[in-house]
């Protein structure tokens, strides 16, 4: 069978009334999705690890953000020029994101060194910690704005997308430290996190429903995109990944855990599945992106 080259797919897309965006969802575009997932989970893990005193969570948080940064670099067409990306802080959310990620990576690394040296209770440690928390918060927040600020894809061009990305990053962060806590036999210390995680899962499910309903009524292009998610080529990752693994199972297990009597292993499984769900929803939203029809 003759191989279809990516550029032939692009030319074929140009004939479509609703042209799909593929650059941020297929091929190397998958690296961008992975990058946003990893940086969100890492920054979320850092934010939750501090109040729970989970040092391993800090290390893994920084590691995930660094891996996300690497995935970002690999996604670029010309990665050797990445340093140029901080030059437009005033208008580009990618520039703002890179600045936040750079700040976080540096200060988080310094904080971990202070941790090893036993100097985190010092004034310097306090300043570095506050900066790292601001950096992590910035990473959690900026990603949604990268997607939402583009006028080309109506499905993303809504304030609901940043809200969704913030919720998913916090959820992923909570899941990461829950898994680490279980692995490190610190489950008891993380007990207060379980209701928060259940609340995050339920509120995220509501947010996804609101998002889809709002976008369904926001024009023919967004309606088409939502149909792709619910009934089209994005339906399988949506129902299997985002809904079943990412929302339903964690909510059910979380509900039982809230009322007591769920083995710790099952809680870990719920956290792991919710991570897969987080990755799936980022993929679904990216994959369902369509351009407006031309001619208008």
């Amino acid at each position, binding site marked *: 069978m003759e191989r279809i080259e990516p550029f032939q797919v*692009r030319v074929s897309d140009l004939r479509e009334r609703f042209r799909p965006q593929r650059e941020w969802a297929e091929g190397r575009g998958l690296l961008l999705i992975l990058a946003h997932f990893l940086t969100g989970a890492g920054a979320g893990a850092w934010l939750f690890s501090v109040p729970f005193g989970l040092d391993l969570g800090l290390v893994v948080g920084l590691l995930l953000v660094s891996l996300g940064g690497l995935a970002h670099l690999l996604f670029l067409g010309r990665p050797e020029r990445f340093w140029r990306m901080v030059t437009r802080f005033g208008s580009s959310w990618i520039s703002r994101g890179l600045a936040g990620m750079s700040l976080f990576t540096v200060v988080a690394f310094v904080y971990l060194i202070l941790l090893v040296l036993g100097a985190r209770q010092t004034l310097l440690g306090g300043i570095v910690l506050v900066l790292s928390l601001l950096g992590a918060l910035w990473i959690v927040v900026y990603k949604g704005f990268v997607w939402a600020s583009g006028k080309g894809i109506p499905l993303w061009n809504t304030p609901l997308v940043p809200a969704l990305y913030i919720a998913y990053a916090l959820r992923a962060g909570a899941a990461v430290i829950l898994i680490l806590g279980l692995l490190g036999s610190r489950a008891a210390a993380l007990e207060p996190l379980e209701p928060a995680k259940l609340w995050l899962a339920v509120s995220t499910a509501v947010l996804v429903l609101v998002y889809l309903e709002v976008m369904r009524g926001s024009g023919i292009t967004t309606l088409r995109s939502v149909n792709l998610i619910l009934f089209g080529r994005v339906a399988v990752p949506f129902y299997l990944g985002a809904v079943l693994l990412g929302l339903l199972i964690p909510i059910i297990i979380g509900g039982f855990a809230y009322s007591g009597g769920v083995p710790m292993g099952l809680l870990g499984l719920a956290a792991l599945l919710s991570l897969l769900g987080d990755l799936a929803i980022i993929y679904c939203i990216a994959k369902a992106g369509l351009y407006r029809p031309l*001619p208008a």
Partner: protein
Amino acid sequence: MRYGMVIDLKRCIGCTGCSLVCKAENATPPGVLWLRVVKNESGKYPQVRRVSMPLQCMHCAEPPCVEVCPTGATYKRSNGIVDIDADKCVGCRYCMMACPYDQRFFLSEERQYFGEGLTPFETHGYRRHQQGVVSKCNFCVPRLEQGLEPACVANCMTKARAFGDLDDPHSEASKLIRDRAGYQLYPELGTNPSIYYLPP
């Protein structure tokens, strides 16, 4: 000064000559169509109408691609032309997501038209294109610098295109827009495109 173009849909016969001459002038690789012609059919037999609509970068006065570009590679010239400095582009493709008209192309690898290596034309022409960066129509800046019109305007056999300064009320383009109720694509997005269409 603001360069702009007016495309008369009544005169356009959909020959795609502009598309072809754009490729010849700019030596764009396969899959890269800085200018394309979309055929739009409406009505029912026997009352059917077919309109050909050339599409290319709209060189917006408020370009969303310039706003989102993290490196400043996409920029607006003083004459209103939105251009790309390929040496600054990192290939993040953010501009492609920001362009409501989907008129940008990413060249991820070297592509050839014929499977037996590059032709002399391709070898020469592809020097102008870098891999891993985004490209698009720039109203043929090298031709403008020589005092020539963009290739698509100069070669349109039905004279369906007019090029000129939209800030000059006496330019042919401005007059056509005024006299024939020229319209822009998706004006509600606030991008203020510099390409106007005259109704068929």
